[in-house]
C-alpha cells in the first residue's frame, strides 16, 4: 500500500517563513530596513559618490531638516559641507563589508573551533582553549599594530584584526553549550544510529547553539562598526576620503555639543542596523524552534 497521499504536504519553507515574518511586524520592519541597507550598500557608492565627496565650506555643519539645498542635505552637512545623507548612504558599502566580514569570519571560525573543542578529545580541546585565552588577553590594538607592520594596511587585514579579537567569545560560548548538549540523550540516539561526528555536530548540536551565537553576533556588529574607526587612525583599513559610519562618528565626535548631527545620524544608522539584526535574530530563534514556533504561527491565523 502507498501512504503518499496521507502524508500532508506542508507549504514550502519560503512561504512558511514569509508567513511567520508577516506575523511579527517588528521583525518584518527590521527585515525591510536591512533590505534597504543592503541595497544602499550595493548601489550607494555608484549612485551618490560624487555628491558625498563634494565639499562646500560655506555649507559646513549645515543643520538638519532643511530642504534648501536638496533632499541630500536633509540630515545636514558635515564639517566640509558635504551632505550627511549622501555620505551615510555611500558609507554603507564599506561599513557593511567590514562589519559583516569581521563578524562572519569571527563567528564562523569561533564556533567551529568551539564545536571542535567541545566535542573533541581533551588534548585538542585544551590546546584550542588555551590559544583562545591568549587571544583574549592580547590587546587588539597590539594585534593591529603588528599586522600593520608585518602585512601592511589593507581592508582584508582590518577585517582579519577585528575578527581575531572576537573569536574567543564565539569559541567559548559554543564550547560551553556543546559540553552540555553532548550529554543529551538525543545525541546518544544519533550516535547509536551511526551518525558521524560531523553530522552530530552540525545537525544536532549546532542548531541548539546557533541562537545564542546570532544574538552575540548581532551586537558584535555594532561593536565592530564602532571599533573599526578606532583602527583607522593607525592607518589600517578604511581611511578618509573613503568613509564608514564609524569614521563619520569619530569625525563628528568633537562636534558633539555644537553640531550633534555630524555623529548622530551615522550613530543612528548603526543603532538601527543592530536593532534590526537583533529583532531578526530573535525572530529567527523563535521561527527555528519548533517548541516556540506557535508564537509566530498563531498570530497569522487568529487573534489568539
Amino acid at each position, binding site marked *: 500500500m502507498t501512504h503518499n497521499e496521507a502524508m500532508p504536504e506542508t507549504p514550502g519553507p519560503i512561504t512558511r517563513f514569509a508567513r511567520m515574518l508577516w506575523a511579527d511586524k517588528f521583525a518584518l520592519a527590521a527585515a525591510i530596513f536591512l533590505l534597504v541597507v543592503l541595497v544602499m550598500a550595493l548601489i550607494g557608492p555608484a549612485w551618490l559618490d560624487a555628491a558625498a565627496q563634494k565639499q562646500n565650506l560655506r555649507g559646513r555643519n549645515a543643520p538638519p531638516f532643511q530642504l534648501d539645498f536638496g533632499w541630500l542635505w536633509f540630515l545636514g552637512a558635515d564639517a566640509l559641507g558635504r551632505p550627511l545623507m549622501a555620505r551615510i548612504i555611500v558609507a554603507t558599502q564599506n561599513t557593511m563589508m567590514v562589519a559583516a566580514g569581521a563578524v562572519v569570519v569571527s563567528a564562523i571560525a569561533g564556533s567551529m573551533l568551539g564545536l571542535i573543542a567541545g566535542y573533541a578529545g581533551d588534548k585538542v580541546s585544551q590546546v584550542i582553549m*588555551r590559544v583562545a585565552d591568549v587571544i*583574549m588577553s592580547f590587546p587588539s590594538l597590539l594585534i593591529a*599594530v603588528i599586522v600593520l607592520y*608585518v602585512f601592511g594596511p589593507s581592508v582584508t587585514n582590518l577585517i582579519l584584526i577585528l575578527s581575531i579579537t572576537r573569536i574567543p*567569545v564565539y569559541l567559548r560560548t559554543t564550547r*560551553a553549550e556543546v559540553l552540555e548538549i553532548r550529554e543529551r540523550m538525543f545525541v546518544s540516539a544519533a550516535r547509536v544510529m551511526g551518525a558521524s561526528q560531523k553530522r552530530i555536530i552540525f545537525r544536532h548540536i549546532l542548531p541548539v547553539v546557533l541562537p545564542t551565537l546570532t544574538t552575540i553576533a548581532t551586537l558584535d556588529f555594532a561593536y565592530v562598526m*564602532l571599533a573599526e574607526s578606532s583602527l583607522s587612525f593607525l592607518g589600517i583599513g578604511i581611511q578618509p576620503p573613503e568613509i564608514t559610519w564609524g569614521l563619520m562618528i569619530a569625525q563628528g565626535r568633537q562636534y558633539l555639543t555644537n553640531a550633534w548631527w555630524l555623529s548622530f545620524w551615522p550613530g543612528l544608522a548603526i543603532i538601527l542596523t543592530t536593532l534590526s539584526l537583533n529583532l531578526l535574530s530573535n525572530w529567527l530563534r523563535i521561527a527555528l524552534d519548533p517548541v516556540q514556533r506557535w508564537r509566530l504561527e498563531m498570530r497569522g491565523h487568529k487573534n489568539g
Partner: protein
Amino acid sequence: MLTFIRKRALASLISLVGLVVLVFFLSRLTGDPAALFLPEDATEAMRVQFRELHGLNDPVLVQFGRYVWDLFHLDFGDSIRKARPAIDVVLEAFTWTLQLAIITMVLVTAAAIVVGSLAAFRAGGFFDRIASLVSLIGASAPDFWIAIVAIVVFSISLGWVPTSGTGTVLHWILPIAVLFIRPFGLIVQVVRGSMISALSSAYVKTARAKGVRARPIIFVHALRNAMLPVITVIGDQAASLLNGAVVIETIFGFPGVGKLMIDSILQRDFNVVLAAILVTALAIFLMNLLIDIAYAVLDPRIRY
C-alpha cells in the same frame, strides 16, 4: 576537580610563556622606540646613544634572553618613558581597572539577569519589548556619546557628580554607569534567549505543578539551566574590561590599564606592554578557569 585544576594551571602556564614569546618578538617587528621617544629633530648620535642605553642594538635573541633572565628574577624591566619599573606602572593602573571591572560586572550581571529573565518570562510582551529596545540601543550606541552626554547632563547641567577623575565615590558613578551599558545590553539578550528555551522545559512544568511561585521558577529552576552561555558572555565582557576601558579612561581621566596599554603600544614602550599583557592575561586566565569550574558546578552533567 583538583587534577583538572592542576592540569589547567600547567596548560595556562604554557600559554603564558607562549604569550610572552609572541608579544616579545612580534612587538619588536613594529618599529623603533628611539624614533618615538626622542624629539623629531634629535641628532643621529642621540639615537644611537638611546638604543645603546636600552639595549636595542643587540640581536633580538640576546634581548629576549636578557628579558627572560630578568623575568625569572621577577624583574619586568623599566619603562622607557617613565624610567621606573614597568611592573609598578602596570600594577598601579591595573588596580584601578580591576576595581572598575569587578564593580561594573557585578552590577551588570545582577541587573542583566533580572531584566533578561523577566523579559523572557513574557517574551513578546510589553516589558520584553521595552527592555530589549532600551538595552539594545544602549549597547549599540557609541560609548563616547553616552559618556559626553552624561557629563553634560549630570555634571555640567545638574552638577550632581564631578565630570571626571578619581577620589570620591561620586567620581565612580559616571564611569561605571557608562561602562555598564554595553555589557548589559549584550547579556540581557543572551539571558533572554537562553531563558526562553529553559522556561519551556518540562521541569518548569513540574515546578508549576508543585505550586512553585513565578519568581523561584524563573530565578531558581530555569535560570541555572540557562546560565552556561550567560556566564561565558559575562566572562568575555569582563575580559574586555580587564583589558582596559579606553574610552572611559580617556574621557573620565581614569588611570586604568587600557590607556596605559595603548600609549605604551603606540610609543613602543615594550616592557610596559609586556608587563601589562602578562598581568591582564593572568587575570583573564584565572577568570576563565573560574568560569570553567562554574560550568561544572552549574551543570552536574558536564564532566572534565
